[in-house]
């Protein structure tokens, strides 16, 4: 099974975020990490390769720093990487990103394309579904299990409130992968060494320029959310805080 995993580099979960001068984006001087759902997507691809053979290719669209995500993926066992390298990708929406990916892979033949179900920075949950539509492939989202069948694959879709659904699908297909589908592996030292020799193809913006256009939506402003709640912060040594909290819960909130 030849699998492509679309991965994104996002600010670290606990990175303190500051608005840039125009307040239309954040200041980029933060630490970055792989988008967590994409790490699960990669892990799932590696497991499918271990079971069924084939190759795992990883792709990302982003500035030079995003290469780190690809290097880590190669170190974990991916075979090839593709980097659409340009900082302009940071500001492009899901539609543009999906079009760029589709163009970058037009000469490849994958059986499956995985994305994480959404990114931790934008949180749109769209790129995978858009990519499927552009490629004319079937898709399924929020996937917790993938089994190979005679006719293609059987996937387990996660629904709300603890419900699930199996779906039979033909290949090729796009799947968006849910966190927790598996347990993430660590890259081994050997893996890290081997990663250096694995192919990493760079795709310049010029190669996908024809399909990338202005975003169809615009972030007019970014801001610290306005609080609608009157949060009472309880301060002091732990013993005191505990007393205060119980007193508030009893007398103010009346839940004790």
């Amino acid at each position, binding site marked *: 099974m030849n699998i492509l995993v679309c991965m994104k580099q996002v*600010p670290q*979960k*606990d990175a*303190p*975020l500051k608005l840039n001068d125009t307040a239309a984006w954040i200041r980029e001087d933060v630490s970055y990490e792989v988008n967590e759902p994409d790490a699960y997507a990669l892990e799932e691809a590696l497991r499918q390769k271990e079971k069924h053979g084939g190759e795992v290719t990883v792709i990302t669209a982003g500035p030079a720093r995003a290469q780190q995500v690809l290097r880590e993926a190669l170190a974990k066992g991916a075979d090839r990487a593709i980097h659409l390298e340009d900082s302009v990708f940071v500001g492009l*929406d899901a*539609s543009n990103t*999906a079009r760029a990916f589709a163009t970058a892979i037009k000469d490849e033949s994958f059986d499956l394309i995985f994305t994480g179900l959404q990114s*931790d*920075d*934008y*949180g*749109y*949950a*769209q790129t995978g*579904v*858009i990519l499927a*539509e*552009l490629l004319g492939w079937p*898709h*399924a*989202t*929020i996937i917790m299990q993938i089994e190979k069948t005679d006719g293609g694959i059987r996937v387990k879709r996660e*629904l*709300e*409130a*603890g*419900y*699930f659904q*199996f*779906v*039979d*699908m*033909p290949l090729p297909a796009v799947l968006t992968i*849910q*966190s*927790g589908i598996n347990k993430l592996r660590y890259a081994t030292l050997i893996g890290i060494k081997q990663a250096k020799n694995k192919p990493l193809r760079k795709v310049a913006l010029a190669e996908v320029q024809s399909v990338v256009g*202005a975003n*169809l*939506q*615009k972030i*007019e*402003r*970014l*801001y610290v*959310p306005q609080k609608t*709640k009157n*949060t*009472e*912060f*309880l301060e002091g040594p*732990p013993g005191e*805080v*505990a007393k205060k*909290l*119980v007193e508030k*819960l009893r007398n103010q*909130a009346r*839940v*004790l």
Partner: protein
Amino acid sequence: MPDTILVIAEQREGKLNRVSWETLTAGQALAADTGWTLEAAVAGGSVGDFARELAAKSVANVYAAESPKLDPYTPDAFAAALKQLIESKQPKLVLLPHTYQVRDFVPKLATAMGRTVISDCVGYKKEGDRLLFTRQMFQGKLAADVSFACDAPWFVTLQNGAFRGDQVETGGSAAPVETFTPEIADGAIRNKPLEVFKEAKQAVDLTQADIIVAVGRGIKEQKNIDLAKQLAEALGGELAASRPICDSGWLPMDRQIGSSGQTVAPKLYLALGISGAIQHIVGMKGARTIVAVNKDSEAPIFEIADYAVVGNLFDIVPPLIEEVKKAKAGS
């Protein structure tokens, strides 16, 4: 002719998904603010009853998009059917709830129409003639006001709980219901869905708990969960968790609170070491009193907390257990 807002309601397992009322409330508010006409639609195998339920609310027209090919739900069928409906009725704005099903088809639908979706919105702003849609970014740390830079139709999905379903206005008389029959080609549907099922037997129903103590990644190790358990017991409440704790197998899936787990609205919700990621918050923001304990003063959970403690939960929880026991003993 004024522009139209089309609310697409969701039906599942023989009922209208109640989140549809929230979407309709949003549609009514937008219609009032813009002067646009509000219409609603529902798609499925046989949706006349659902359409009539919608028609009882304050809405100008309801469309029942019906076809046996729309049952069971598949993204191919729904995207095809709704594309035809939208091309026929030409709404300016299409509103949907941000459910797992909508996420599965609306980006496909919008792309097929050469358009875009602003998803998981928590509100909107009207600035002069411009409509901006507010959504959370960076897991709730920042908010963004987003505008459309393209022609209609505009697609917007709304976060669970962003609007009040119980505030939807009823109409004076029933709105007209029109059946719309989409053409869905044989072979257009590529997925074959099987039965929807619940995974494990639900050992605990968190929706019935008055008091919930929930743990997140801040609990650090599985063995530390016992501390939260003791607090839950002292309070007479139930133990719950955010998704990563359940993914790690530290607590069973039926303890999960959030978009994939339970949605709860207890009298008291104590969030210990939970950052407040959107997927968790949608499952508990309706709690009457929210207490949050987290080391990180910037954690988004503090935006919705009534009482906040910025500190180490391992320092706070032990004396808290003692104080709770004392209070309960004294009363």
